[in-house]
């Protein structure tokens, strides 16, 4: 079982940082809503404990790290391989994903719409989640007393989820039609002989 170094980096970027961020988003939305809508006066929605507040702060900081790592590895590690210039006389475009997509009318849209949107929209995710984490760390349980701040934070976490979802969807589809390949081959494990 082998994988190329570029494919491994793409997997770390997409399935590691990106997919994990998307999973974390749904949890953050639920937890932020639950934490900030709970009331000490209501037995059905007890106020969160200090340990729970601390956990959510750590959770949001982890999301900030995931989001920034995802966009930075995407822009500075994988994107240069994706958009690499084709040397004159090259016939096999398999190591030049952008040019491979653009070489066929049936796949050009994955670049002209998919990658062109993904490369910018993805950055709204770390910006939004950094803001949400900052506000929650600063206000903590007190956020429950600021209804409009709470609504804005939830809205921006949802926007972050949407941005990461768009980037993740197009990333997965682009990698399906024109995978980033090349670099050193890494042997993951040996399979059984037939």
């Amino acid at each position, binding site marked *: 079982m082998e994988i190329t170094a570029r494919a491994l980096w793409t997997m770390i970027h997409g399935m590691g940082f990106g997919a994990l961020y998307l999973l974390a988003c749904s949890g953050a939305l639920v937890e932020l809503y639950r934490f900030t809508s709970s009331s000490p006066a209501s037995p059905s929605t007890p106020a969160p404990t200090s340990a729970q507040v601390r956990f959510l702060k750590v959770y949001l900081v982890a999301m900030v790290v995931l989001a920034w790592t995802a*966009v930075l590895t995407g*822009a*500075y590690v994988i*994107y*240069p391989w994706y*958009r*690499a210039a084709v040397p004159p006389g090259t016939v096999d475009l398999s190591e030049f994903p952008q040019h491979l997509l653009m070489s066929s009318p049936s796949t050009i849209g994955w670049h*002209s*719409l998919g990658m*062109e*949107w993904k*490369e*910018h*929209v993805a*950055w*709204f995710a770390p*910006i*939004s989640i*950094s*803001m949400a984490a*900052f*506000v929650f760390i*600063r*206000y903590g349980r*007190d956020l429950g*007393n*600021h209804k*409009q*701040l709470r*609504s*804005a*934070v939830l*809205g*921006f976490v949802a*926007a972050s989820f*949407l*941005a990461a979802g768009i980037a993740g969807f197009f990333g997965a589809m682009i990698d399906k039609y024109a995978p980033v390949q090349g670099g050193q081959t890494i042997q993951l494990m040996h399979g059984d002989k037939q």
Partner: protein
Amino acid sequence: MNAQPREVSANTSALTNGSGAAAILAAGMGSFALAILAVAADRSATVKSVLIFYKPTGPLSGVTTVAILIWLAIWTIMDFRWRKKTIALTKTNRIAFVLMILSFLLTFPPIEDLF
């Protein structure tokens, strides 16, 4: 922006909303700055070449770096000015969300190509 310093009641909240409002509005403005820079780099060859900070990544490197610097600068300045104030959040939130929606739309290639 309409900043209205007020007394904060002890039994409602220990913190004013200014710092949170600054973070929210700055996030909207930072995202919008990124969208504007992306459109500018797509439309103008001069802007595009100026924004190539790291050649393998192309103008995306400059678009995102400048946008992040703008976002952080706006956030720092607004936080400094608003942290002890109570802000009219309805208007601030509305502006931040409109900017975020516009950012999504402006970076969407069929709309970006209209400019």
